[in-house]
């Protein structure tokens, strides 16, 4: 039952994604890509869980490395998107 519930969430979220971004102007193709890319860094949540709870050295190491890469993805992604969008702002 639980599996069905989260699978439902998964499928519905995909549809929401399609609806929300259906029409995107070419101007924003790159920022949308790098911004959504930063959101895919959500794996940091999974990394924090596995680095935090396991009392085994190997999995803590795996978790911490995962945290480093996921954080680069998140922080770098949002910052670079912001920088790019600033350039798009109309210069008065």
């Amino acid at each position: 039952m639980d599996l069905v519930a989260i699978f439902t969430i998964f499928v519905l979220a995909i549809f929401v994604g399609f609806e929300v971004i259906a029409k995107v102007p070419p101007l924003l193709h790159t920022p949308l890509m790098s911004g959504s890319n930063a959101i895919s860094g959500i794996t940091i949540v999974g990394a924090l869980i596995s680095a935090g709870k396991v009392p085994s050295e190997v999995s803590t190491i795996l978790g911490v490395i995962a945290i480093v890469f996921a954080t680069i993805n998140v922080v770098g992604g949002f910052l670079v998107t912001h920088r790019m969008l600033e350039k798009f702002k109309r210069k008065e």
Partner: protein
Amino acid sequence: MTETTIKIISNVAYLIASIFFIIGLKGLAHPRTAVRGNLLGAIGMLIAIITVLWANDVLSWYWIIAGIVVGSGIGAVLSYKIEMTAMPQLVALFNGFGGLASVLIGGAALLEVAGPVKLTGVNQSVNIQLIIATIASGLIGAVTFWGSFIAFGKLQGLKFIPDAAVRYPGEQIVKLILILSSIVLGVFIVMDPVKYEYFYWIIVVLSSVLGVLLVIAIGGADMPVVIALLNSYSGIAGAATGFIDNNYVLIIAGSLVGASGIILTQLMCKAMNRSLANVLFGGFGAVAQTSSADEVYGNKIKAVTADDIAIFLDTAQKVVIIPGYGMAVGQAQHAVKDLTVLLESKGIDVEFAIHPVAGRMPGHMNVLLAEVDIPYDKLKEMDEINQTLSQVDVAIVLGANDVVNTDARDKADSPIAGMPIIDADKAKTVIIIKRSLSPGFAGIPNPLFALDNSYMFFSDGKKAVMDIVTAVKNL
């Protein structure tokens, strides 16, 4: 607080984070709200991170904080130091890192299942969903990481990664074998996760090879499709990771990104009139008899100098610049800005015609032109500019080729037939700035170059535009 209460509160917090992601992505798809959308996405991420740290018994704070600090530092430095021209590579690289994180999390999750059993010798029943999610996480994550790395290499121009498509006999079979053997190994892990735990890393290796092979078989000009697709994969890898411990926010955010990546992929494919399967597995084959370069060009090519072009421009009222990958390679965007300012100071109307797949990533030309402060209302989409091109005095094709190839429109048996193009040939005069007559990515000659109203300026993009600027000034 009881465990149930913590679970309820954290799930509500994840829901709020997910709403931020949805509104953020919606904002990112519209010019006016894009900055705010990105910000909302970042806030959603912060909520998710704080929640997970609060809700879980974290044993090794020291390491976690170290990891976050190091990652943030690297991310911040990369995002501020990077040149705008290197944006495609950076996006590819960040993308890959997300995939790598999924691989590592999967590995850790499997250890967690196998570890206690090895210690106690008691083989309790294992959660099959967890195992399958772990395998999916590792497989998609590794394909994403290595695929992105190869894409990065091609975009960065790393010497050991060829820009052209690497093709060999039986390549599809090799890829199929890699996928099938990964799945078989996965079945073994599901049957006995403790005994076959290490198979996970074999799957990771196999899918790494698969990721390399998938992207190395794709030529530079098809990169916009690949980058968008990898973007989608990184989201799906995240969603798979979410299935490992039923984490709602991972599943929702991951699938949102997966969907947005697929939309971009479709847009790019449509702009080339090719199916995704054709981009991934086909490439431009010997689809039809193409006319030889000699037949098309004959002695109809007219080479001109910067001074000749200056005279064309002097009498023009409306000029359209059609940039392509050549502008990015030659770093010609600053010279283009100079030319635009100069022509506008003479009362000439200058606009830019942007083909959706010009360059190496979706929106590549827009980023380059924004970098040099060319206002975005001057950047016209293909459909819009095509309606006005017949009133244009001079069209300057700068380092673009296939996207202005008239064969796509006029010749039904051409390999690129049906691909929407910018109708540069409709302009009164067409100037093509190009190093030589060498064909574009599709490998076919371009009849545009041989038209009566076409003139070739053989030169490097940046130097050519600078020479034209000097020539116009000296008139």
